[in-house]
């Protein structure tokens, strides 16, 4: 059957569900029975409900903070969570899932759990939630005081989603595009959209029972020079796909680009455009919040520099009125952070959100122009996708990626065209150097070209892929606009 953006029937859903529960022994847990899970979720207090706390944050105009974190073993994971809550003042807790689980390699994960026990250190880069099952996941839930979310990168997260929600975790990150193209090599979009329709429908079914859960498409994609209009378009499409399945509480995301004005423009439009298009396409009762990810590309190795970059992220997120920030740590360039380093990133971010709480970013013509351009580009991409999908967003996505109408820079997936190239302009805004098949009109293309040509002129070199490479390295070297040929002037 051709996949369409259409709500799964209960019948279909529950049939599929049986199969999915058989993927790994923990799926057989009887607490996964729908009524039992409903009962448990109903008992979750508001203060531990992700969706409700996000509503609270938006109402009070707060920018909240959340780290990434996860280790192999349950007790250590709980210790980690408690530490980040207490010493990091985290408003929301994650559980970052390990990469074997993300690829559904549960037996690999099982081995690694054993190795971790033996070696007394986490051999996994995250928390293997499926292997630990409801036993482990619910224990985590019981031992923290703030809402929990699974953060991963799993193309097929159906069993994972079932287990975490039935354990009281009230948010799930991901989406059929955002957890495929940056996270897989040759899984079809057809498959991942189907998988994520399932995850969304699950949340929709809980919603029908009066339980509000949050869903969060993964905004930053490859985290590497992604133009805002591209990540926005994908966030909006995933929001629409989720809304169709009955999701009522959605957080759309964006990865900090580095130019403050572009970042503020992006955050403001992310909120307004998502709300706008959800309504346009008939989803009237979805509550939308935004999340900004602190710099997602290569980090500087120096910890003081990393702290500064983290602070800049918190600055723009707060000035841009993001509802939530995903924080980084001073260990980012090196490896999974210790809990102490993780908490440092949190505390630095928290200070900034509180210092800037009542401050606003001035709106001038440059900001307005940036926003208009994002709006125009998103509109173009969105309607081109809808068009090629003959009015259906699910089909549209599949066709759009096939033809490069949607294209994500540096993605590993073979489903991605991989023809566009971004580069920064003189002020550090991310612009597009090679458009591939992006369906942009001449005005948009001229805007990008002019910006890059101005840079080429100033740097005395042609606009080329060398700029892109320089820009990829730049931030890890402590600058925003890269130029490997540049010599700093000196006295």
């Amino acid at each position: 059957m051709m996949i369409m953006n259409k709500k799964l029937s209960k019948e279909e859903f529950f049939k599929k569900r049986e199969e999915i529960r058989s993927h790994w022994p923990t799926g057989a847990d009887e607490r996964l029975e729908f009524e039992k899970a409903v009962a448990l979720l109903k008992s979750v207090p508001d203060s531990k409900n992700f969706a409700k706390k996000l509503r609270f944050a938006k109402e009070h105009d707060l920018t909240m903070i959340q780290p990434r974190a996860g280790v192999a073993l349950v007790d250590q994971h709980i210790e980690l969570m408690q530490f980040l809550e207490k010493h990091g003042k985290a408003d929301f807790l994650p559980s970052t899932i390990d990469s074997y689980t993300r690829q559904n390699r549960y037996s690999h994960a099982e081995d690694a759990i054993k190795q971790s026990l033996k070696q007394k250190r986490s051999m996994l880069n995250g928390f293997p939630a499926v292997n630990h099952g409801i036993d482990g996941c619910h224990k985590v839930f019981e031992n923290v005081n703030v809402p929990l979310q699974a953060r991963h990168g799993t193309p097929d997260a159906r069993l994972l989603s079932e287990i975490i929600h039935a354990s009281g975790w009230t948010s799930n990150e991901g989406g059929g595009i955002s957890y495929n193209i940056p996270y897989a090599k040759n899984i079809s979009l057809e498959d991942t959209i189907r998988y994520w329709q399932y995850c969304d429908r699950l949340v929709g079914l809980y919603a029908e029972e009066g339980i509000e859960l949050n869903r969060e498409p993964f905004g930053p994609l490859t985290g590497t020079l992604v133009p805002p209009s591209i990540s926005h378009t994908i966030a909006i499409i995933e929001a629409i796909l989720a809304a169709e399945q009955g999701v009522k509480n959605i957080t759309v995301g964006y990865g900090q680009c580095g130019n403050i004005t572009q970042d503020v423009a992006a955050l403001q439009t992310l909120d307004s455009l998502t709300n706008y298009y959800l309504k346009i396409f008939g989803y009237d009762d979805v509550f939308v919040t935004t999340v900004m990810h602190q710099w997602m590309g290569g980090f500087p190795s120096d910890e003081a520099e990393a702290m500064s970059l983290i602070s800049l992220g918190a600055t723009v997120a707060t000035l841009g009125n993001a509802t939530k920030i995903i924080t980084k740590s001073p260990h980012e360039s090196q490896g999974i952070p210790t809990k102490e380093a993780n908490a440092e990133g949190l505390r630095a971010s928290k200070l900034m959100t509180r210092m800037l709480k009542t401050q606003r970013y001035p709106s001038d013509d440059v900001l307005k122009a940036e926003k208009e351009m994002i709006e125009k580009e998103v509109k173009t991409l969105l309607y081109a996708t809808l068009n090629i999908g003959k009015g259906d967003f699910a089909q549209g996505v599949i066709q759009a990626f096939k033809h490069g109408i949607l294209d994500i820079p540096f993605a590993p997936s073979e489903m991605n065209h991989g023809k566009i190239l971004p580069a920064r302009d003189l002020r550090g805004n991310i612009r597009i150097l090679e458009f591939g098949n992006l369906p942009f009109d001449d005005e948009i293309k001229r805007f990008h070209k002019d910006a890059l040509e101005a840079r080429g002129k100033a740097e005395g070199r042609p606009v080329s892929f060398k700029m892109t490479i320089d820009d990829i390295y730049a931030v890890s070297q402590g600058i925003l606009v890269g130029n490997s040929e540049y010599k700093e002037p000196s006295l």
Partner: protein
Amino acid sequence: MYTVVIGVIGADVHAVGNKIIDHVLKEHGFNVVNIGVLSSQEDFINAAIETDAKAILVSSLYGHGELDCKYMKENMVEAGLSHVKLYVGGNIVVGKQDFTEVEERFKKMGFDRVYPPGTNIEHAVGDIKEDLADA
């Protein structure tokens, strides 16, 4: 013109470094066989056999490098690739660890050279050329 196999091992999807290594090594005249992300030891070994490569450059970013690289050297020897140089780089272990210890662990596992996080590939090119000239 040396042939080298590059790729990202295990369940790892970090693609950016891989694309850059590809670009830079080609610029330096290497014949690059890029097997991309999510590659198994077998994929590396098969590619090296098929292309008669002189070296394998394993990237591992995501933290499971130590698990994924286990017995790789042994498997290469078994496949008749004992003469092929074996390098690894990226963020090859979980967390911020003392690199000299990490290097030692991987050298014991049979890796000829081990590169710390954030190594600029330009800086490694010299090492590789030298090793392959010697060999």
